[in-house]
């Protein structure tokens, strides 16, 4: 038997929907949400304004370049974050100030090199004033030597 559209209710037919659903649907008009006319008007006004704006690509491009300081700052912030994640974390991979001979590690040869430079009368780089007393001397050599023999935190001692 063909009943045509199943959503069409015919006279005399009982509803096939569950009773709970029917009850809920019948109750729906009683629960109307009140929307103040002011809100309706505001939404309408905002929609009109939005739709009235031209949407050509030239304007979009102009908007992007008008905000270039923001984009630049965002890019720099991203680069900074990337650097924080990939930067070397100490040890021998970073060139330390004490690594005088630039061989990637601080050892007694660095202290020895600075001692030789001081002994031969060469003027060492001001950056080698490791204790910050204003002069590069044997005390700075000692600081490097102490650094060279320092036991690592992860060591057994």
């Amino acid at each position, binding site marked *: 038997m063909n009943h045509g559209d199943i959503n069409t209710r015919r006279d005399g037919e009982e509803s096939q929907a569950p009773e709970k659903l029917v009850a809920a649907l019948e109750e729906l008009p009683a629960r109307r949400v009140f929307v103040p006319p002011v809100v309706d008007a505001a939404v309408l006004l905002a929609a009109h304004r939005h739709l009235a704006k031209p949407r050509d690509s030239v304007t979009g491009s102009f908007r992007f370049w008008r905000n270039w300081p923001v984009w630049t700052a965002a890019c720099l912030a991203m680069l900074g974050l990337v650097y924080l994640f990939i930067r070397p974390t100490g040890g021998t991979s970073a060139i330390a100030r004490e690594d005088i*001979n630039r061989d990637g590690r601080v*050892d*007694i*040869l660095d*202290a*020895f*090199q600075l*001692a*030789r430079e001081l*002994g031969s009368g060469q003027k060492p780089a001001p950056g080698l004033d490791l204790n910050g007393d204003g002069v590069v001397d044997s005390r700075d050599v*000692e600081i490097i*030597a*102490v650094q*060279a*023999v*320092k*036991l690592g935190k992860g*060591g*057994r*001692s």
Partner: protein
Amino acid sequence: MALTCGRLSAQPGADAAVQFRAVDIYVDSKEQPLAAYQLEFSVTNGASAAKIAGIEGGESLAFSEPPFYDPRAIQHERVIIAAFSTNAVSNLPKGKTRVATIHLQTSRVVEPEFELKLEVAADLNGNRIPAQATARERKAQ
């Protein structure tokens, strides 16, 4: 980097539960004058076998002062020692020379075993030179 391992033998006649031993550290720079060295000494079977009690300098004038070391190594089983000398080449040792002595506090129960790693040796110009480090227990006279 050279690596040397060794084992100390118990001194006869020592009855105390704890005893002290001296281990002489040598660096052999062959024909080259030795101006700087850095090495790591460690007791490989734990601090219960031996603990470092003190460190003194070597036999030659160039290395007679105690080497640089981390004071935290005392009473532990691992130390890095290093020294250099800016003396004239004629005052630098050649061949096998005692560069330091490490004093150990040892247990009579466990025989200490140790490892010696020469990290670097250099001549007067700071150039790395091939060398070998060895350790030998000093016998009582």
